[in-house]
């Protein structure tokens, strides 16, 4: 059976992961669209989709809440869904705010955090935040949404692994002892004991203060002292999310292109999923250059004679050169993919060709979905 088809019929959560630009968002949207066509109540959580894809899904701006793709969108593409498609675009900031509101001991403390300047910078600059919030949103959708299937896209990192390491990186960041040691002189004394910062910390702070200004340090210290007492909540949630990702309900679809860099990344990613006990489901090899037949053998001499001939000869020469170039690409892609077969058995692969149209509207997505769901699994 086709691996994607199988996953969609038995899983509740599908995570599309891979390095940047390989087609994660497109794949996620196509899977959810097809599931909705086939009768499921499906949701797709997209992250940073192309504008035209977003508008195909009826999404205009970041929204933390899923919205149902209207019947009209389907009918105008000549489609009749048996189920429902809901879509949303991750809004990191408001998702983070919600997390803070949930774990802060008092609403006042939550407000102090949300208005803190350091906090406001986090969602824009700190790497790992977007990944963490995507997981948070997934958890929420799964708990309260009542969906048969949730397909989630992952952030456009250069490196697919960033996504796996994100929650840990973020909790480490919040919990760093070193940081607090340096910020000690700025922390309001808690419990009535004023600790004496050591000399290195003071020297360091003097310089940092010169560079960034005292206010920035005060904001940072205020942020971390307000966060006291919330770590357990964060950690608990991170554990719950991890458990959800590891459960039988979830499956990871690794998306790659046949380019060398992304294949290397995908290989590594599949290994890491395995090591982390996360359920690998399928490999989507997207944007594969199509092959149109057996190679044509032309000698350089034959080619030269054609190039020196009449217009018809020259036309043929050019067609042969073009064939040879694309054939070279096809060959190169096969070579890149070979190593991957050692890590991921071929019966879990699905190939999606480089489309001759843009994959940004319903017809494009349907075409991708056909390849994803109806394509033969690779011969072993």
């Amino acid at each position, binding site marked *: 059976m086709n691996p994607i088809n199988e996953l969609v019929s038995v899983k509740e959560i599908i995570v599309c992961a891979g390095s940047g630009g390989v087609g994660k968002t497109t794949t996620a949207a196509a899977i959810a669209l097809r599931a909705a066509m086939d009768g499921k109540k499906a949701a797709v959580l997209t992250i940073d989709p192309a504008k035209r894809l977003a508008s195909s899904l009826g999404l205009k701006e970041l929204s933390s809440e899923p919205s149902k793709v209207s019947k009209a969108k389907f009918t105008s593409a000549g489609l009749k869904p048996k189920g429902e498609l809901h879509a949303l675009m991750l809004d990191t900031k408001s998702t983070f705010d919600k997390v803070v509101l949930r774990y802060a001991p008092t609403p006042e403390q939550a407000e102090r955090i949300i208005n803190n300047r350091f906090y406001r910078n986090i969602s824009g600059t700190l790497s790992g935040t977007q990944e963490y919030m995507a997981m948070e949103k997934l958890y929420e959708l799964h708990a309260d949404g009542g969906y048969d299937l949730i397909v989630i896209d992952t952030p456009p990192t250069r490196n697919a692994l960033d996504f796996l390491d994100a929650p840990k990186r973020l909790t480490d960041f919040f919990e760093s002892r070193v940081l607090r040691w340096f910020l000690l002189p700025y922390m309001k004394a808690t419990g009535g004991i004023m600790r004496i910062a050591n000399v290195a910390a003071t020297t360091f702070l003097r310089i940092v203060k010169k560079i960034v200004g005292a206010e920035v340090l005060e904001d940072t210290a205020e942020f971390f002292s307000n966060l006291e007492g919330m770590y357990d909540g964060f950690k608990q949630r991170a554990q719950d999310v991890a458990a959800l990702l590891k459960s039988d309900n979830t499956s990871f679809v690794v998306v790659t292109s046949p380019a060398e860099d992304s294949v290397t990344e995908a290989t590594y990613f599949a290994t890491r999923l395995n090591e982390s006990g996360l359920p690998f489901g399928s490999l989507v090899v997207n944007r594969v*250059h199509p092959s149109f037949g057996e190679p044509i053998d032309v000698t350089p001499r034959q080619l030269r*004679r054609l190039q020196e001939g009449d217009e018809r000869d020259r036309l043929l020469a050019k*067609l042969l050169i073009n064939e040879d170039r694309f054939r070279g690409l096809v060959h190169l892609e096969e070579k890149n993919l070979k190593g991957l077969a050692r890590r991921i058995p071929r019966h879990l692969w699905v190939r999606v060709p480089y489309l001759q149209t843009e994959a940004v509207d319903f017809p494009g997505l349907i075409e991708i979905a056909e390849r994803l769901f109806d394509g033969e699994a690779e011969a072993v």
Partner: protein
Amino acid sequence: MNIDEFLDPTILIVSGKGGVGKTTVAASLALVAARHGRKVCVVEVDQKGTLTKLLGGRSATYEPTELTPRVWGVNITAERALAEYLEVQYHMKRISRVFTSSHFVDYIATAAPGLEDILILGKIWFLEKGRYTEHNFDTIIVDAPAAGHMLTFLSAPMGLSDAVRVGPIKRQAEWLVEMLRDPKRARVHLVTLPEEMPVSETLETAAALDGKIGISAGQTFANAVYRPLLDENEQSLFEEIAADGSIDELCKAADRVGLSLDGRDLEALNGYAGFLQSRRDIQADHLARLRKGKGGVIDLPFLFSAGLALPDVESLADVIEAEVASL
């Protein structure tokens, strides 16, 4: 445009979305500048040496190393730049070591976003002024970081100079702003692919550079553009042949040179030609959108080589020279 005019600004910043070909274009620009007698420094920002390898050298370090005649390379990280800054400004050699070995820069970067970028731009300023280095570069080519939005990197000094009221930091931030806003000293070249998202982002970036950031945008490079296969006559001949099914015309041509083609071969030739054409049509729409924006657009060809290397960069440099001349 005269090539000397093109190479007039000392600092050429190559910017764009991830994976569009920034590093490839930066390497090609380095060769163009070197061919015209410049002593060039290519700057990698916290990367793993893709740029320097493309130029045939080893991975770059914080100290310039020569990669190919007249082209040098450096790799700048915010940590090293901060350590150097503390050393030369505050003579704090020992404490500066702490930075290279821990996450401090991460925290500081979150506390004061843009600081990392400023440290890197500060080092570029040192290189431009020939400070703390024995070299004097005529051209500095920066392969700007892809992560995050490309505008934040360039607008960081403006942010800092607004935020800090007095003191040495204020002054230094202003020096960087001056450097970036002076078209004789710095120019930003944007690289894009002829695809939806990269073109949209490039248009937005170009408008913002021109507007609130106030940095002169140079050329936009449309990378990996499929070259046309057939000229007009050949195209109409091909269409004629395909339309009336007189495909054996091509078989006859093949026969003449001792090549035998069957129906499947012809289908393959047709298939690849069709694929190229449909990709070209898609690219054409996006290239048209790009050309509606301000400033010149230089098309760089899609190269079919397996993994780009120095000869490919040489050929892109040829194209850039020719295209600049015809601007």
